């Protein structure tokens, strides 16, 4: 038994933290949030240059061939920002999907580019009737000569604005089967619009009679794509929860610092038991998210049965990041609502990540299944 990170992981952790502090200071993050433009950008190019995006992509395909726990360490630090994508959505989920279901040619074509961040391949699965199950896929793929014509819309696509390509879940018009097709973001008939509101990098992708070729289909059979996505999602989810852990860690440190330095009634507010309790609730959420996330990563890395641990981690992690931000707002009161302070960057991210790759309701249901209930 050893719950410590390896020396290499500790070094990586420190390097990423320095990088994020340097390349993604609060001002940069606030400005990216305000404009919605985080990629392409200079910090993004520098991130891509580190090679970290390919951390979990096999070396044969231009990646670093690290473990999922390594990826967890990386993304926990990115979550402290929170650093906007498309990193997890493309270099992890996109790459894992290609790796799991793509032909050798597709792997050769995509993985090196995704590892270097030269392309971003973002999964477009959910639609207006929000849901992550195959039955919720309605986007129609109609056979047209050697290829397909796509008609429909994908809603709440995370990192959609910064994607160069989409990997769209589509339903075959003829037999109703579900598969994945890659579509360039700049293809004719594709329009991407960012969704306004209390959300983080969510957008809608409309496909109006978009032509794709058979070769754009992921894998050899039409159906192979969906299974690949399922497998990739299971491997990506606990890394996403590590990102949420990083967010919890950041708002925890903010809250401890504020409660030590903010003076009211002539004393640091951290002396008041009610303020302490907000911080304690926060750290309990943080640690619950941390250890469920890393146990799930460990189970996957060691090829143990991990379904229960993965669903547990996302159910706990989503709840934790959401509530951690709420507790942080209780500690900061009015100051926390000021955009310039930076807390709302996390508050906003926590809401969107609450649902990304499935919300607590979804994962609790799957957890019950995994437990044989």
């Amino acid at each position, binding site marked *: 038994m050893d719950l410590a990170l390896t020396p290499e992981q500790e070094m990586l952790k420190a390097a990423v933290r320095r990088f994020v502090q340097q390349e993604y200071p609060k001002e940069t993050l606030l400005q990216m949030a305000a404009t919605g433009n985080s990629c392409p950008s200079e910090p993004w190019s520098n991130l891509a240059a580190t090679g970290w995006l390919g951390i979990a992509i096999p070396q044969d395909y231009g990646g670093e061939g690290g473990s999922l726990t390594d990826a967890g360490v990386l993304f926990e630090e990115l979550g402290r920002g929170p650093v906007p994508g498309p990193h997890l959505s493309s270099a992890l989920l996109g790459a894992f999907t290609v790796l799991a279901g793509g032909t050798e040619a597709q792997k050769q074509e995509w993985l090196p580019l995704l590892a270097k961040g030269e392309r971003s391949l973002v999964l477009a699965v959910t639609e207006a009737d929000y*849901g992550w199950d195959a039955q919720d896929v309605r986007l129609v793929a109609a056979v047209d000569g050697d290829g397909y014509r796509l008609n429909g819309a994908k809603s*709440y696509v995370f990192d959609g604005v910064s994607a160069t390509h989409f990997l769209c879940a589509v339903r075959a018009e003829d037999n109703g089967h579900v598969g994945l097709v890659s579509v360039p973001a700049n293809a004719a008939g594709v329009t991407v619009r960012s969704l306004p509101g209390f959300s983080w990098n*969510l957008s*809608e992708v409309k496909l109006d009679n978009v032509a794709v070729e058979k070769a754009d289909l992921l894998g050899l059979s039409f159906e192979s794509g969906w299974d690949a996505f399922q497998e990739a999602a299971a491997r990506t989810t606990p890394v996403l929860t590590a990102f949420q852990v990083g967010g919890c860690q950041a708002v925890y440190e903010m809250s401890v610092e504020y409660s030590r330095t903010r*003076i009211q009634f002539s004393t640091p507010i951290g002396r008041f038991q009610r303020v302490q309790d907000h911080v304690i609730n926060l750290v309990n959420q943080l640690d619950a998210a941390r250890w469920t996330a890393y146990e799930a990563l460990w189970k996957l890395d060691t090829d143990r049965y991990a379904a229960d641990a993965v669903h547990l981690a996302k159910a706990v992690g989503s709840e934790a990041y959401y509530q951690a931000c*709420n507790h942080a707002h209780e500690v900061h*009161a*009015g100051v926390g609502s000021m955009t310039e302070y930076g807390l709302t960057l996390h508050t906003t991210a926590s809401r969107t990540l609450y649902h990304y790759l499935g919300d607590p309701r979804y994962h609790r249901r799957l957890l019950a299944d995994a437990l044989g209930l």
Partner: protein
Amino acid sequence: MDFEPTYTKEQENFRLEVRAWLTENVPSGIVHPPDPIDLTYEQYQLRRDLGRKLGEKGWLWPTAPVEYGGGGLSLDYSVVIEEEIDSFGMTLPPYYDSGGKLGGASILVWGSEEQKQFFLNKIFKGEVRTWQLLSEPEAGSDLANVKTTAIRDGDDYVINGQKIFVGSGLGCDYMWTITVTDTEAKRHENLGWFMIPADLPGITIQPMDLLISGGESGAGSGVKNTVFFDNVRVPAFNIVGGENQGWKVATTHLELEHGTGGRIARNWLVDRMFDYCQTTQYRGEPLAKDPEVRSKLVDIYIDAEISRLFNLRNYWMRHSGANITYEGPQASYYRKTSGLRQATAILDILGPVALTYDPELGAVEGHVEAYMRSALIALHPGGTTDIQKVIMARRIGIGREVREKAGALA
């Protein structure tokens, strides 16, 4: 017991009169956008006009004394007006007027006869819109720690300092503000309240950049501002309750802000959510038929009912002169915390649909998205949830030697 106003024939006729009058006088296009930050100048003017008309009839502040421009109506008549205006999706006054609501009530208790005549008529007739100015960078929960100074100079006071989280969009006519009137005196004995004309030289208003303003009523008050006072000269007539008497006045002000006023308005968001979930199809059946959704809608309903009953009780206690102790902050605390629970339940029910006001995808014309932000930020204005509990404990009598009394209300 009787949980509803019982209406006499006269009152029922009065209701018909009010309804007819509102139907005639509430213009189209006045309706409140999800986030009042989007309230247009035109909409605001329509609301001010309506306010003035209501003021003329004494319906803007129905229970306020006639001699100061109020309606002088009994509780049951005022309830009729509030219910009818509520059915038009509005409140009294039909615009953000924190300083009128809280400053007016404070002046009723602590103002001189001249001040009552001068200020209350303007307020109760709807001639002016007034903001309250409390918080400062160093004075959030600790209001007594304000640093803004008002120093006597001849017949005037000269005011310097900075207030934050002030007011709304589109300006105001008066500012109801607490300041330090004696920089030497000790805590709680160094304060004074002023009713300040907003157009005096030296006053600068600067909008703040916030997640949302988070007034307690739904989507809040829209814009919040930082207000700077730079050697602003205010006539001594405008100090209310006297130099260094400010804390006494504050108890009245805070009592109302802490929820003792009570409310009878229904919770529109609950109705809207029920309606949305019953009419929105998901996987071929109404969303409301999903067992988990059903259960979460019941959670939302129960919290709303308890909050309604706490507010109803306070409304009755206030107007029947019952002995109020912890009930005000209790209602405020419950409204704040249950509001966030309800937002969480809605997020679970709707998914990211709840996070956008996109016209094609957002729910309930964007009201839900605004609520996701305001339910969180509403935890703090008017006393944080922690402060509400501090006051509750004192009033229950476990916080201190002597049980604290509630602030005086007219």
